């Protein structure tokens, strides 16, 4: 059984390697070109630093606004798709809807929204909202499903209404988790938003793509450095905040 599985795995992987034209020799032949690009990227052209910083701020704005709006929109969806809160007739369609929309990446949403509302950061914000709402709703619903039954029973036994049970028995258990998920999403959305500019949805990616197209590698490397720095700073801030939550 184990051997058969291993054999199948090897055959499948070998075929994918052949079908994708994955050839180590081609990579080795390409190495000089990579070295050449790296050489041309150095030293970074710092004259484009103001533009790169401006782009970075835009990217953070896109991620921040998109995540904040999504964090709120995901609340009702999260409760509707939690097995222990919503009736089966609501839960199943809600879960299916979430899974459907979550399987589309932020970048694809950006393409759609650029076509709909035009170029700039706004379609980027919309794309972040579209993806993050459904992915946060999924995380929320899992947090709700993982709550302790005991406090909910205790609040129910006091004669509380359904909404009071939610507010006093459920929310205190899930809110810190919700906040932690939102921060985590903010981190990944900053990274996702760096490439939104590639499809015309604003932010630092726009500059990166522009300089790469113009073969201004030294300028592009400045943009890349700013991107890395921005992501690292946000990650550090966010994980510090998250550590204090749980």
């Amino acid at each position, binding site marked *: 059984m184990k051997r058969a599985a291993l054999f199948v795995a090897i055959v499948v992987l070998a075929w994918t390697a052949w079908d994708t034209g994955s050839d180590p020799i081609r990579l080795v032949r390409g190495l000089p070109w990579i070295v050449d690009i790296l050489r041309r990227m150095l030293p970074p052209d710092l004259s484009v630093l103001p533009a790169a910083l401006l782009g970075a701020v835009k990217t953070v704005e896109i991620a921040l606004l998109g995540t904040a709006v999504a964090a709120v929109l995901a609340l009702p969806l999260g409760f509707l798709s939690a097995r222990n809160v919503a009736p089966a007739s609501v839960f199943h369609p809600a879960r299916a809807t979430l899974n459907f929309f979550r399987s589309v990446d932020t970048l694809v949403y950006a393409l759609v929204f650029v076509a709909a509302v035009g170029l700039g950061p706004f379609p980027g914000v919309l794309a972040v909202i579209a993806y993050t709402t459904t992915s946060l709703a999924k995380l929320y619903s899992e947090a709700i499903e993982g709550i302790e039954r005991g406090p909910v029973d205790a609040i129910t036994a*006091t004669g509380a209404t359904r909404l009071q049970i939610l507010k006093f028995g459920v929310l205190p258990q899930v809110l810190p988790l919700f906040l932690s998920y939102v921060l985590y999403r903010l981190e990944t959305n900053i990274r996702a938003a760096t490439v939104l500019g590639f499809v015309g949805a604003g932010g630092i990616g726009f500059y990166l793509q522009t300089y790469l197209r113009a073969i201004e590698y030294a300028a592009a490397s400045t943009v890349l450095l700013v991107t890395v720095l921005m992501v690292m700073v946000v990650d550090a801030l966010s994980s510090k905040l998250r550590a204090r939550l749980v």
Partner: protein
Amino acid sequence: MIEITGLSVVLPPAVPVLHGIDLVVRPGEFVVILGRSGAGKTTFLRSINRLVTPTAGTVAIAGRNVTAAGPVELRELRRRIGMIFQQFNLVRRASVLDNVLAGRLGYVPALPSLLGRFPATDRDVALACLGEVGLASLAHRRADTLSGGEQQRVAIARALAQSPDVILADEPTASLDPALTGSIMDILRRINVDRGLTLIVSQHQLETALAYATRIVGFHRGRIRFDGPPSAVTPAVVDLIYGDGAPR
């Protein structure tokens, strides 16, 4: 008066737990339900305030049918029945006072309570109840920073805040250090004597049950095997309740 008639519970998927329980509890009694784990004590207590829905039979409190009550009447009945749990069931991240205030939820105006606002009189009730269990000084601590015994006392204060006629306590000392059993049971006795509340407490510890109860009801495999005063609990009765000559 609590009248339980023909109470049967089958828990999903198809586990029969209680088989036609008949029991009348008079006001002011301190009833201890005795039995091994799995005898149906927890399910019995949870059927009284309908945290578990009975499969057959009725529960009536002061002549009002709990089993047939609609949502509004059920909430009204529940607020007069305090409940204490083996695992305390406090909201860990909330303050001690907020946990006790939850006992007032059946009385306070709904909308302000959802915003976390409680009338001053209800706060006073909650603080008084905390004082009654000797924890007034810990009102603003987070619940999960308290010891197990303290947490159970907060849970008792929460039940008292309901201004109940009846308190149900499901193995209130089972997850505590044995040395704390007496202190918790003493508080329950004081509530019974001073406030005149009816108590129905489940216990698996024989000595504790005999020391505090005014009436012992012995459960064995979902049926009542014994019902009488502690003085009538002979070794033969103990065998009957714990069954099959097994050590208790």
